[in-house]
Protein backbone atom coordinates (compact mmCIF):
# COMPACT_ATOMS: atom_id res chain seq x y z
CA UNK A 1 0.00 0.00 0.00
CA UNK A 2 2.99 2.25 -0.27
CA UNK A 3 2.32 5.42 -2.16
CA UNK A 4 4.13 5.91 -5.45
CA UNK A 5 5.46 9.34 -4.51
CA UNK A 6 7.37 8.01 -1.53
CA UNK A 7 8.81 5.03 -3.40
CA UNK A 8 10.38 6.98 -6.19
CA UNK A 9 13.58 7.81 -4.32
CA UNK A 10 16.63 6.25 -5.96
CA UNK A 11 18.80 4.98 -3.12
CA UNK A 12 15.89 3.33 -1.31
CA UNK A 13 14.92 1.54 -4.49
CA UNK A 14 18.44 0.23 -5.04
CA UNK A 15 18.59 -1.14 -1.50
CA UNK A 16 15.11 -2.62 -1.87
CA UNK A 17 16.02 -4.47 -5.06
CA UNK A 18 19.37 -5.57 -3.62
CA UNK A 19 17.64 -7.09 -0.59
CA UNK A 20 14.99 -8.78 -2.74
CA UNK A 21 17.60 -10.20 -5.09
CA UNK A 22 19.69 -11.59 -2.23
CA UNK A 23 16.63 -13.20 -0.70
CA UNK A 24 15.61 -14.63 -4.05
CA UNK A 25 19.07 -16.15 -4.52
CA UNK A 26 18.93 -17.58 -1.02
CA UNK A 27 15.58 -19.17 -1.79
CA UNK A 28 16.82 -20.61 -5.05
CA UNK A 29 20.03 -21.94 -3.50
CA UNK A 30 18.76 -25.37 -2.39
CA UNK A 31 17.37 -26.13 -5.83
CA UNK A 32 20.51 -24.80 -7.51
CA UNK A 33 22.59 -27.07 -5.28
CA UNK A 34 20.32 -29.98 -6.02
CA UNK A 35 20.42 -29.59 -9.81
CA UNK A 36 24.05 -28.58 -10.12
CA UNK A 37 25.36 -31.44 -8.01
CA UNK A 38 23.13 -33.98 -9.68
CA UNK A 39 25.22 -33.64 -12.83
CA UNK A 40 28.62 -33.82 -11.11
CA UNK A 41 30.81 -36.87 -10.61
CA UNK A 42 30.97 -37.89 -6.94
CA UNK A 43 34.66 -37.10 -6.48
CA UNK A 44 34.03 -33.55 -7.63
CA UNK A 45 31.50 -33.10 -4.82
CA UNK A 46 33.78 -34.63 -2.20
CA UNK A 47 36.89 -32.80 -3.36
CA UNK A 48 35.27 -29.58 -4.54
CA UNK A 49 32.41 -27.48 -3.28
CA UNK A 50 28.66 -27.65 -3.56
CA UNK A 51 28.27 -24.19 -5.06
CA UNK A 52 30.64 -24.69 -7.99
CA UNK A 53 29.38 -25.64 -11.41
CA UNK A 54 30.45 -29.09 -12.57
CA UNK A 55 33.79 -29.38 -14.34
CA UNK A 56 32.99 -32.74 -15.90
CA UNK A 57 29.26 -32.88 -16.62
CA UNK A 58 27.62 -36.27 -16.30
CA UNK A 59 24.07 -37.61 -16.45
CA UNK A 60 25.19 -40.83 -14.76
CA UNK A 61 23.65 -39.84 -11.36
CA UNK A 62 20.27 -39.29 -13.05
CA UNK A 63 20.42 -42.66 -14.75
CA UNK A 64 21.43 -44.34 -11.50
CA UNK A 65 18.70 -42.61 -9.50
CA UNK A 66 16.09 -43.40 -12.14
CA UNK A 67 16.86 -46.98 -12.98
CA UNK A 68 19.59 -48.74 -11.01
CA UNK A 69 19.82 -47.34 -7.46
CA UNK A 70 19.12 -49.83 -4.68
CA UNK A 71 15.82 -48.94 -3.01
CA UNK A 72 13.87 -52.11 -2.50
CA UNK A 73 15.15 -55.61 -2.74
CA UNK A 74 16.05 -55.17 -6.41
CA UNK A 75 18.22 -52.36 -7.77
CA UNK A 76 15.36 -50.76 -9.69
CA UNK A 77 16.00 -47.06 -9.17
CA UNK A 78 13.09 -44.68 -8.57
CA UNK A 79 11.29 -45.57 -11.79
CA UNK A 80 8.72 -48.06 -10.47
CA UNK A 81 7.96 -45.82 -7.48
CA UNK A 82 7.52 -42.79 -9.67
CA UNK A 83 5.00 -44.86 -11.59
CA UNK A 84 3.33 -45.94 -8.32
CA UNK A 85 2.87 -42.30 -7.41
CA UNK A 86 1.13 -41.64 -10.72
CA UNK A 87 -1.08 -44.70 -10.28
CA UNK A 88 -1.90 -43.32 -6.85
CA UNK A 89 -2.35 -39.67 -7.71
CA UNK A 90 -4.49 -39.90 -10.85
CA UNK A 91 -7.42 -41.88 -9.40
CA UNK A 92 -7.13 -40.29 -5.94
CA UNK A 93 -7.29 -36.77 -7.37
CA UNK A 94 -10.10 -37.62 -9.79
CA UNK A 95 -12.28 -39.35 -7.19
CA UNK A 96 -11.75 -36.83 -4.41
CA UNK A 97 -12.43 -33.90 -6.77
CA UNK A 98 -15.64 -35.50 -8.03
CA UNK A 99 -16.82 -36.18 -4.49
CA UNK A 100 -15.93 -32.62 -3.51
CA UNK A 101 -17.96 -31.18 -6.38
CA UNK A 102 -20.96 -33.33 -5.53
CA UNK A 103 -20.75 -32.50 -1.82
CA UNK A 104 -20.29 -28.80 -2.51
CA UNK A 105 -23.35 -28.82 -4.74
CA UNK A 106 -25.52 -30.68 -2.23
CA UNK A 107 -24.36 -28.67 0.77
CA UNK A 108 -25.08 -25.33 -0.88
CA UNK A 109 -28.24 -25.99 -2.90
CA UNK A 110 -30.25 -28.16 -0.54
CA UNK A 111 -31.34 -27.60 3.01
CA UNK A 112 -31.34 -30.39 5.54
CA UNK A 113 -30.90 -30.81 9.24
CA UNK A 114 -27.36 -30.97 10.52
CA UNK A 115 -25.79 -29.57 7.35
CA UNK A 116 -23.69 -27.04 9.25
CA UNK A 117 -22.60 -29.55 11.82
CA UNK A 118 -21.65 -31.95 9.04
CA UNK A 119 -19.61 -29.30 7.30
CA UNK A 120 -17.87 -28.36 10.55
CA UNK A 121 -17.06 -32.03 11.09
CA UNK A 122 -15.57 -32.24 7.60
CA UNK A 123 -13.64 -29.04 8.13
CA UNK A 124 -12.04 -30.24 11.34
CA UNK A 125 -11.01 -33.46 9.62
CA UNK A 126 -8.68 -31.34 7.49
CA UNK A 127 -6.69 -30.39 10.58
CA UNK A 128 -6.43 -33.64 12.50
CA UNK A 129 -2.96 -35.09 12.98
CA UNK A 130 -3.10 -38.28 10.92
CA UNK A 131 -1.27 -40.12 13.68
CA UNK A 132 -4.68 -40.36 15.36
CA UNK A 133 -6.05 -42.58 12.56
CA UNK A 134 -2.94 -44.58 11.62
CA UNK A 135 -3.52 -47.63 13.81
CA UNK A 136 -7.21 -48.25 12.99
CA UNK A 137 -6.62 -47.45 9.31
CA UNK A 138 -3.81 -50.01 9.17
CA UNK A 139 -6.22 -52.55 10.65
CA UNK A 140 -8.99 -51.59 8.22
CA UNK A 141 -6.73 -51.87 5.17
CA UNK A 142 -5.65 -55.28 6.43
CA UNK A 143 -9.27 -56.44 6.72
CA UNK A 144 -10.14 -55.07 3.27
CA UNK A 145 -7.09 -56.81 1.78
CA UNK A 146 -5.69 -53.43 0.70
CA UNK A 147 -2.66 -53.34 2.97
CA UNK A 148 0.55 -52.71 1.05
CA UNK A 149 -1.22 -51.84 -2.20
CA UNK A 150 -1.50 -48.71 -4.29
CA UNK A 151 -5.29 -49.15 -4.17
CA UNK A 152 -5.14 -48.92 -0.40
CA UNK A 153 -3.25 -45.63 -0.65
CA UNK A 154 -5.81 -44.32 -3.15
CA UNK A 155 -8.55 -45.12 -0.65
CA UNK A 156 -6.75 -43.43 2.25
CA UNK A 157 -5.89 -40.31 0.30
CA UNK A 158 -9.45 -39.99 -1.00
CA UNK A 159 -10.92 -40.35 2.48
CA UNK A 160 -8.69 -37.69 4.03
CA UNK A 161 -8.96 -35.44 1.00
CA UNK A 162 -12.75 -35.14 1.07
CA UNK A 163 -12.63 -32.40 3.70
CA UNK A 164 -10.52 -30.15 1.49
CA UNK A 165 -12.30 -30.80 -1.79
CA UNK A 166 -15.72 -30.30 -0.18
CA UNK A 167 -14.51 -27.06 1.38
CA UNK A 168 -13.28 -25.75 -1.96
CA UNK A 169 -16.45 -26.51 -3.90
CA UNK A 170 -18.81 -25.51 -1.12
CA UNK A 171 -17.29 -22.05 -0.85
CA UNK A 172 -17.30 -21.66 -4.62
CA UNK A 173 -20.89 -22.78 -5.11
CA UNK A 174 -22.11 -20.74 -2.13
CA UNK A 175 -21.23 -17.63 -4.14
CA UNK A 176 -22.98 -18.92 -7.27
CA UNK A 177 -26.01 -16.85 -8.40
CA UNK A 178 -29.11 -18.65 -7.15
CA UNK A 179 -31.34 -17.20 -9.87
CA UNK A 180 -29.56 -19.21 -12.53
CA UNK A 181 -30.21 -22.43 -10.68
CA UNK A 182 -33.82 -21.49 -9.91
CA UNK A 183 -34.58 -20.71 -13.54
CA UNK A 184 -32.96 -23.96 -14.68
CA UNK A 185 -35.22 -25.81 -12.26
CA UNK A 186 -38.24 -23.95 -13.65
CA UNK A 187 -37.20 -25.18 -17.07
CA UNK A 188 -37.38 -28.69 -15.70
CA UNK A 189 -33.75 -29.47 -14.97
CA UNK A 190 -33.43 -32.30 -12.44
CA UNK A 191 -30.70 -32.91 -9.84
CA UNK A 192 -28.03 -33.90 -12.33
CA UNK A 193 -29.28 -31.45 -14.94
CA UNK A 194 -28.51 -28.51 -12.68
CA UNK A 195 -25.10 -29.93 -11.81
CA UNK A 196 -24.06 -30.84 -15.33
CA UNK A 197 -25.62 -27.99 -17.31
CA UNK A 198 -25.41 -25.06 -14.88
CA UNK A 199 -22.77 -25.59 -12.20
CA UNK A 200 -20.03 -27.65 -13.82
CA UNK A 201 -19.64 -25.51 -16.97
CA UNK A 202 -18.72 -22.54 -14.80
CA UNK A 203 -16.64 -24.54 -12.32
CA UNK A 204 -13.44 -24.46 -14.37
CA UNK A 205 -11.37 -22.37 -11.96
CA UNK A 206 -12.35 -24.27 -8.83
CA UNK A 207 -11.78 -27.62 -10.54
CA UNK A 208 -8.28 -26.51 -11.52
CA UNK A 209 -7.59 -25.24 -8.00
CA UNK A 210 -8.82 -28.47 -6.44
CA UNK A 211 -6.99 -30.74 -8.86
CA UNK A 212 -3.72 -28.87 -8.35
CA UNK A 213 -4.13 -28.82 -4.60
CA UNK A 214 -4.91 -32.52 -4.39
CA UNK A 215 -2.21 -33.44 -6.89
CA UNK A 216 0.45 -31.54 -4.96
CA UNK A 217 -0.66 -32.84 -1.58
CA UNK A 218 -0.96 -36.48 -2.59
CA UNK A 219 2.22 -36.52 -4.68
CA UNK A 220 4.12 -35.08 -1.72
CA UNK A 221 2.40 -37.20 0.90
CA UNK A 222 4.72 -39.33 3.03
CA UNK A 223 3.15 -40.54 6.29
CA UNK A 224 0.44 -42.74 4.73
CA UNK A 225 2.92 -44.04 2.17
CA UNK A 226 5.41 -44.94 4.87
CA UNK A 227 2.72 -46.57 7.02
CA UNK A 228 0.57 -48.46 4.53
CA UNK A 229 2.75 -49.47 1.60
CA UNK A 230 5.45 -52.07 1.01
CA UNK A 231 8.26 -52.54 -1.49
CA UNK A 232 5.84 -53.11 -4.34
CA UNK A 233 3.70 -50.05 -3.65
CA UNK A 234 5.95 -47.33 -2.17
CA UNK A 235 5.12 -43.89 -3.49
CA UNK A 236 8.02 -41.74 -4.69
CA UNK A 237 8.47 -39.88 -1.40
CA UNK A 238 9.01 -43.08 0.56
CA UNK A 239 11.33 -44.46 -2.11
CA UNK A 240 13.37 -41.25 -2.11
CA UNK A 241 13.66 -41.32 1.65
CA UNK A 242 14.83 -44.93 1.49
CA UNK A 243 17.36 -44.05 -1.17
CA UNK A 244 18.82 -41.21 0.89
CA UNK A 245 18.53 -42.52 4.43
CA UNK A 246 19.05 -46.23 4.27
CA UNK A 247 21.99 -46.36 1.92
CA UNK A 248 24.97 -48.02 3.51
CA UNK A 249 28.55 -47.52 2.51
CA UNK A 250 29.48 -44.74 0.13
CA UNK A 251 26.99 -41.86 0.16
CA UNK A 252 26.23 -40.98 -3.43
CA UNK A 253 25.24 -37.37 -2.95
CA UNK A 254 24.88 -36.75 -6.67
CA UNK A 255 22.42 -39.66 -6.97
CA UNK A 256 20.48 -38.39 -3.97
CA UNK A 257 20.22 -34.93 -5.48
CA UNK A 258 19.12 -36.35 -8.82
CA UNK A 259 16.53 -38.50 -7.04
CA UNK A 260 15.23 -35.56 -5.02
CA UNK A 261 14.87 -33.52 -8.17
CA UNK A 262 13.11 -36.33 -10.01
CA UNK A 263 10.62 -36.53 -7.13
CA UNK A 264 10.15 -32.75 -7.28
CA UNK A 265 9.65 -32.40 -11.03
CA UNK A 266 5.90 -33.11 -11.32
CA UNK A 267 4.82 -30.67 -8.61
CA UNK A 268 7.36 -28.07 -9.74
CA UNK A 269 6.03 -28.27 -13.30
CA UNK A 270 2.47 -27.89 -12.07
CA UNK A 271 3.56 -24.91 -9.97
CA UNK A 272 5.37 -23.23 -12.85
CA UNK A 273 2.50 -23.78 -15.27
CA UNK A 274 -0.32 -22.79 -12.95
CA UNK A 275 1.15 -21.07 -9.92
CA UNK A 276 -1.81 -18.70 -9.77
CA UNK A 277 -4.21 -21.54 -9.08
CA UNK A 278 -1.82 -23.13 -6.61
CA UNK A 279 -1.77 -19.90 -4.60
CA UNK A 280 -5.54 -19.66 -4.80
CA UNK A 281 -5.78 -23.17 -3.38
CA UNK A 282 -3.43 -22.26 -0.57
CA UNK A 283 -5.50 -19.21 0.28
CA UNK A 284 -8.81 -21.05 0.02
CA UNK A 285 -7.38 -23.79 2.19
CA UNK A 286 -6.22 -21.35 4.82
CA UNK A 287 -9.16 -18.97 5.02
CA UNK A 288 -11.75 -21.44 6.18
CA UNK A 289 -15.45 -21.23 6.77
Amino acid sequence: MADRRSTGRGADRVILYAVLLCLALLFLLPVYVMVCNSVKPLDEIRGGNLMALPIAWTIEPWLTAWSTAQIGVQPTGLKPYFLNSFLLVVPAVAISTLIGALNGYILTQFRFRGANLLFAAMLFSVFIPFQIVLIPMAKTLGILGLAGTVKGLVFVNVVYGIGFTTLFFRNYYAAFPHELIRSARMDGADFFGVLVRILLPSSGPIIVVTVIWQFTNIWNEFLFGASFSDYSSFPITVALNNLVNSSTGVKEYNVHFAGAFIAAIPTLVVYLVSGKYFVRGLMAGSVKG
Partner: protein
Amino acid sequence: MRAGALPKLLLSPSVLLVLVCVYGYIMFTIYLSFTSSTLMPSYEWAGTASYQRLFAQENWRIALSNLWVFASLYIGVAVALGLGFAILIDQHIRAEGAFRSIFLYPMALSFIVTGTAWKWLLDPGVGLEHTMHNIGWESFAFGWIKDSDMAIYCVVIAAVWQTTGFVMALFLAGLRGVDAEQISAARVDGARTWQIYLHVIIPQLGPVFVSAFVILAHMAIKSYDLVIALTNGGPGRSTWLPSVFMYQYSFTRNEMSVGAASAVMMLAAIGLVVLPYLFSEMRKVENG
Protein backbone atom coordinates in the same frame (compact mmCIF):
# COMPACT_ATOMS: atom_id res chain seq x y z
CA MET B 1 -34.60 -26.25 -1.66
CA ARG B 2 -35.34 -28.96 0.87
CA ALA B 3 -33.25 -32.02 0.23
CA GLY B 4 -35.05 -35.01 -1.26
CA ALA B 5 -33.87 -38.58 -1.18
CA LEU B 6 -31.33 -38.30 -4.01
CA PRO B 7 -29.09 -35.57 -2.57
CA LYS B 8 -29.10 -37.31 0.80
CA LEU B 9 -28.25 -40.62 -0.82
CA LEU B 10 -25.36 -39.10 -2.76
CA LEU B 11 -24.01 -37.31 0.28
CA SER B 12 -24.18 -40.38 2.48
CA PRO B 13 -20.97 -42.12 1.36
CA SER B 14 -18.95 -39.05 2.30
CA VAL B 15 -20.78 -38.72 5.57
CA LEU B 16 -20.16 -42.37 6.31
CA LEU B 17 -16.47 -42.17 5.42
CA VAL B 18 -15.90 -39.07 7.52
CA LEU B 19 -17.88 -40.44 10.46
CA VAL B 20 -16.08 -43.79 10.41
CA CYS B 21 -12.59 -42.98 9.18
CA VAL B 22 -12.19 -39.70 11.02
CA TYR B 23 -14.37 -39.67 14.11
CA GLY B 24 -14.76 -43.43 14.53
CA TYR B 25 -11.03 -43.93 14.23
CA ILE B 26 -10.36 -41.12 16.68
CA MET B 27 -12.62 -42.92 19.15
CA PHE B 28 -10.86 -46.19 18.42
CA THR B 29 -7.42 -44.67 19.02
CA ILE B 30 -8.62 -43.02 22.22
CA TYR B 31 -9.95 -46.39 23.35
CA LEU B 32 -6.67 -48.10 22.46
CA SER B 33 -4.80 -45.60 24.60
CA PHE B 34 -6.70 -46.98 27.60
CA THR B 35 -5.82 -50.60 26.84
CA SER B 36 -2.67 -52.64 27.20
CA SER B 37 -2.07 -53.03 23.43
CA THR B 38 1.47 -53.88 22.48
CA LEU B 39 2.23 -55.36 19.06
CA MET B 40 -1.41 -55.67 18.02
CA PRO B 41 -4.51 -53.87 19.25
CA SER B 42 -5.93 -55.54 22.34
CA TYR B 43 -9.20 -54.54 23.94
CA GLU B 44 -8.36 -55.21 27.54
CA TRP B 45 -9.04 -52.10 29.61
CA ALA B 46 -5.96 -50.86 31.42
CA GLY B 47 -7.10 -47.47 32.67
CA THR B 48 -4.61 -44.64 32.42
CA ALA B 49 -1.57 -46.91 32.58
CA SER B 50 -0.32 -45.96 29.12
CA TYR B 51 -0.63 -42.25 29.86
CA GLN B 52 1.38 -42.74 33.03
CA ARG B 53 3.94 -44.64 31.03
CA LEU B 54 3.92 -41.97 28.32
CA PHE B 55 4.59 -39.12 30.72
CA ALA B 56 7.34 -41.12 32.40
CA GLN B 57 9.20 -41.60 29.13
CA GLU B 58 12.41 -39.67 28.64
CA ASN B 59 11.71 -39.92 24.88
CA TRP B 60 8.38 -38.16 25.26
CA ARG B 61 9.93 -35.41 27.35
CA ILE B 62 12.55 -34.90 24.63
CA ALA B 63 9.89 -34.90 21.89
CA LEU B 64 7.81 -32.31 23.76
CA SER B 65 10.68 -29.96 24.51
CA ASN B 66 11.81 -30.26 20.87
CA LEU B 67 8.29 -29.45 19.69
CA TRP B 68 8.26 -26.40 21.94
CA VAL B 69 11.59 -25.14 20.59
CA PHE B 70 10.73 -26.01 17.01
CA ALA B 71 7.18 -24.63 17.02
CA SER B 72 7.98 -21.33 18.70
CA LEU B 73 10.98 -20.58 16.48
CA TYR B 74 9.29 -21.85 13.33
CA ILE B 75 6.14 -19.80 13.89
CA GLY B 76 8.00 -16.72 15.09
CA VAL B 77 10.56 -16.65 12.31
CA ALA B 78 8.18 -17.63 9.51
CA VAL B 79 5.67 -14.96 10.54
CA ALA B 80 8.35 -12.27 10.89
CA LEU B 81 9.97 -13.14 7.57
CA GLY B 82 6.64 -13.65 5.81
CA LEU B 83 5.48 -10.20 6.90
CA GLY B 84 8.84 -8.68 5.95
CA PHE B 85 8.76 -10.28 2.49
CA ALA B 86 5.18 -9.16 1.95
CA ILE B 87 6.07 -5.56 2.83
CA LEU B 88 9.07 -5.62 0.47
CA ILE B 89 6.95 -7.05 -2.34
CA ASP B 90 4.24 -4.49 -1.63
CA GLN B 91 6.45 -1.53 -2.66
CA HIS B 92 5.21 -1.48 -6.27
CA ILE B 93 8.31 -3.30 -7.44
CA ARG B 94 9.13 -4.54 -10.90
CA ALA B 95 8.92 -8.28 -11.54
CA GLU B 96 6.65 -8.66 -8.53
CA GLY B 97 5.27 -11.90 -9.92
CA ALA B 98 8.74 -13.41 -10.34
CA PHE B 99 9.74 -12.59 -6.76
CA ARG B 100 6.49 -13.99 -5.39
CA SER B 101 6.97 -17.19 -7.37
CA ILE B 102 10.53 -17.60 -6.15
CA PHE B 103 9.58 -17.14 -2.50
CA LEU B 104 6.59 -19.44 -2.79
CA TYR B 105 7.90 -22.35 -4.87
CA PRO B 106 9.22 -24.35 -1.90
CA MET B 107 5.58 -24.89 -0.88
CA ALA B 108 5.14 -27.02 -4.00
CA LEU B 109 7.90 -29.41 -2.90
CA SER B 110 7.60 -32.46 -0.74
CA PHE B 111 9.16 -32.17 2.71
CA ILE B 112 11.16 -35.25 1.75
CA VAL B 113 12.72 -33.33 -1.15
CA THR B 114 13.33 -30.29 1.05
CA GLY B 115 14.79 -32.53 3.74
CA THR B 116 17.14 -34.24 1.30
CA ALA B 117 18.43 -30.97 -0.16
CA TRP B 118 19.00 -29.37 3.24
CA LYS B 119 20.40 -32.55 4.75
CA TRP B 120 23.46 -32.38 2.49
CA LEU B 121 23.57 -28.59 2.39
CA LEU B 122 23.87 -28.49 6.19
CA ASP B 123 26.14 -31.52 6.43
CA PRO B 124 29.61 -30.36 7.50
CA GLY B 125 31.31 -33.08 5.48
CA VAL B 126 29.87 -32.09 2.12
CA GLY B 127 27.74 -28.95 2.46
CA LEU B 128 28.28 -25.39 3.58
CA GLU B 129 31.22 -26.03 5.92
CA HIS B 130 33.03 -28.17 3.37
CA THR B 131 32.40 -25.56 0.69
CA MET B 132 33.76 -22.71 2.84
CA HIS B 133 36.88 -24.73 3.65
CA ASN B 134 37.27 -25.45 -0.03
CA ILE B 135 37.26 -21.79 -1.01
CA GLY B 136 39.83 -20.99 1.66
CA TRP B 137 37.88 -20.10 4.84
CA GLU B 138 39.48 -22.86 6.92
CA SER B 139 38.10 -21.83 10.30
CA PHE B 140 34.46 -21.81 9.19
CA ALA B 141 32.43 -24.27 11.23
CA PHE B 142 28.77 -25.13 10.78
CA GLY B 143 28.02 -28.61 12.04
CA TRP B 144 24.67 -28.07 13.78
CA ILE B 145 23.06 -31.04 12.06
CA LYS B 146 25.60 -33.39 13.68
CA ASP B 147 25.28 -31.72 17.08
CA SER B 148 22.49 -33.07 19.27
CA ASP B 149 22.05 -29.71 20.99
CA MET B 150 21.74 -27.79 17.72
CA ALA B 151 20.19 -30.21 15.21
CA ILE B 152 16.63 -29.08 16.00
CA TYR B 153 17.54 -25.62 14.70
CA CYS B 154 18.38 -27.20 11.35
CA VAL B 155 14.82 -28.50 11.21
CA VAL B 156 13.65 -24.94 11.89
CA ILE B 157 15.80 -23.58 9.04
CA ALA B 158 14.45 -26.03 6.46
CA ALA B 159 10.85 -25.63 7.65
CA VAL B 160 11.09 -21.83 7.54
CA TRP B 161 12.54 -21.99 4.04
CA GLN B 162 9.62 -24.13 2.94
CA THR B 163 6.78 -22.05 4.42
CA THR B 164 7.88 -18.41 4.50
CA GLY B 165 6.50 -17.79 1.01
CA PHE B 166 3.12 -19.09 2.09
CA VAL B 167 3.00 -16.73 5.06
CA MET B 168 4.08 -13.96 2.70
CA ALA B 169 1.12 -14.75 0.44
CA LEU B 170 -1.25 -14.58 3.43
CA PHE B 171 0.12 -11.18 4.45
CA LEU B 172 0.08 -9.86 0.88
CA ALA B 173 -3.62 -10.67 0.65
CA GLY B 174 -4.08 -8.89 3.97
CA LEU B 175 -2.07 -5.83 2.88
CA ARG B 176 -4.19 -5.43 -0.22
CA GLY B 177 -7.25 -5.19 2.00
CA VAL B 178 -5.97 -2.42 4.27
CA ASP B 179 -8.03 0.77 4.34
CA ALA B 180 -6.38 3.12 1.84
CA GLU B 181 -7.94 6.27 3.29
CA GLN B 182 -6.23 5.86 6.63
CA ILE B 183 -2.91 5.52 4.83
CA SER B 184 -3.46 8.70 2.82
CA ALA B 185 -4.51 10.51 5.98
CA ALA B 186 -1.34 9.40 7.76
CA ARG B 187 0.72 10.49 4.80
CA VAL B 188 -0.91 13.91 4.77
CA ASP B 189 0.05 14.17 8.45
CA GLY B 190 3.65 13.67 7.35
CA ALA B 191 4.18 10.08 8.52
CA ARG B 192 7.07 8.17 6.94
CA THR B 193 6.52 4.87 5.18
CA TRP B 194 7.87 2.74 8.05
CA GLN B 195 5.75 4.65 10.53
CA ILE B 196 2.68 4.03 8.43
CA TYR B 197 3.43 0.29 8.39
CA LEU B 198 4.07 0.21 12.11
CA HIS B 199 1.15 2.34 13.30
CA VAL B 200 -1.50 2.08 10.60
CA ILE B 201 -1.10 -1.05 8.49
CA ILE B 202 0.25 -3.78 10.76
CA PRO B 203 -2.35 -3.14 13.48
CA GLN B 204 -5.02 -3.87 10.85
CA LEU B 205 -3.50 -7.24 10.02
CA GLY B 206 -4.63 -8.90 13.25
CA PRO B 207 -6.76 -11.56 11.53
CA VAL B 208 -3.85 -12.51 9.23
CA PHE B 209 -1.59 -12.99 12.25
CA VAL B 210 -4.23 -15.25 13.78
CA SER B 211 -4.65 -17.33 10.59
CA ALA B 212 -0.89 -17.62 10.13
CA PHE B 213 -0.44 -18.66 13.74
CA VAL B 214 -3.14 -21.33 13.59
CA ILE B 215 -1.92 -22.80 10.31
CA LEU B 216 1.75 -22.81 11.29
CA ALA B 217 1.06 -24.15 14.77
CA HIS B 218 -0.97 -27.04 13.42
CA MET B 219 1.72 -27.76 10.82
CA ALA B 220 4.36 -27.74 13.54
CA ILE B 221 2.44 -30.22 15.68
CA LYS B 222 1.94 -32.52 12.68
CA SER B 223 5.54 -32.19 11.43
CA TYR B 224 6.93 -35.59 10.59
CA ASP B 225 8.21 -35.92 7.02
CA LEU B 226 10.77 -33.15 7.29
CA VAL B 227 12.39 -34.52 10.43
CA ILE B 228 12.52 -38.01 8.97
CA ALA B 229 14.19 -36.83 5.76
CA LEU B 230 16.48 -34.26 7.36
CA THR B 231 17.77 -35.95 10.51
CA ASN B 232 15.71 -39.12 10.90
CA GLY B 233 15.17 -37.99 14.50
CA GLY B 234 18.87 -37.85 15.23
CA PRO B 235 21.61 -37.49 16.13
CA GLY B 236 20.40 -40.03 18.68
CA ARG B 237 16.93 -38.89 19.66
CA SER B 238 17.77 -35.22 19.64
CA THR B 239 15.27 -34.17 16.96
CA TRP B 240 12.39 -36.45 17.92
CA LEU B 241 9.02 -34.75 17.73
CA PRO B 242 5.75 -36.21 19.08
CA SER B 243 4.97 -37.51 15.57
CA VAL B 244 8.24 -39.47 15.53
CA PHE B 245 7.55 -40.77 19.02
CA MET B 246 4.08 -41.91 17.97
CA TYR B 247 5.38 -43.80 14.95
CA GLN B 248 8.23 -45.43 16.84
CA TYR B 249 6.16 -46.60 19.77
CA SER B 250 3.16 -47.75 17.71
CA PHE B 251 4.93 -49.55 14.91
CA THR B 252 8.49 -50.45 15.82
CA ARG B 253 8.67 -50.68 19.61
CA ASN B 254 5.47 -52.68 20.07
CA GLU B 255 4.01 -50.26 22.58
CA MET B 256 0.84 -49.49 20.69
CA SER B 257 -1.17 -48.17 23.63
CA VAL B 258 1.59 -45.68 24.47
CA GLY B 259 1.75 -44.70 20.80
CA ALA B 260 -2.03 -44.24 20.80
CA ALA B 261 -1.80 -42.10 23.94
CA SER B 262 0.80 -39.89 22.25
CA ALA B 263 -1.48 -39.52 19.20
CA VAL B 264 -4.32 -38.47 21.51
CA MET B 265 -2.07 -35.82 23.03
CA MET B 266 -1.24 -34.54 19.54
CA LEU B 267 -4.93 -34.36 18.65
CA ALA B 268 -5.66 -32.52 21.89
CA ALA B 269 -2.92 -29.98 21.14
CA ILE B 270 -4.28 -29.37 17.66
CA GLY B 271 -7.83 -29.13 18.97
CA LEU B 272 -6.73 -26.44 21.43
CA VAL B 273 -5.20 -24.40 18.62
CA VAL B 274 -7.71 -25.01 15.85
CA LEU B 275 -11.18 -25.37 17.39
CA PRO B 276 -11.49 -21.83 18.81
CA TYR B 277 -10.35 -20.52 15.43
CA LEU B 278 -12.84 -22.63 13.47
CA PHE B 279 -15.72 -21.66 15.76
CA SER B 280 -14.97 -17.97 15.44
CA GLU B 281 -14.55 -18.25 11.65
CA MET B 282 -17.86 -20.06 11.28
CA ARG B 283 -19.62 -17.54 13.49
CA LYS B 284 -18.23 -14.75 11.34
CA VAL B 285 -19.65 -16.42 8.24
CA GLU B 286 -23.06 -16.91 9.86
CA ASN B 287 -23.19 -13.28 10.92
CA GLY B 288 -22.39 -12.25 7.37
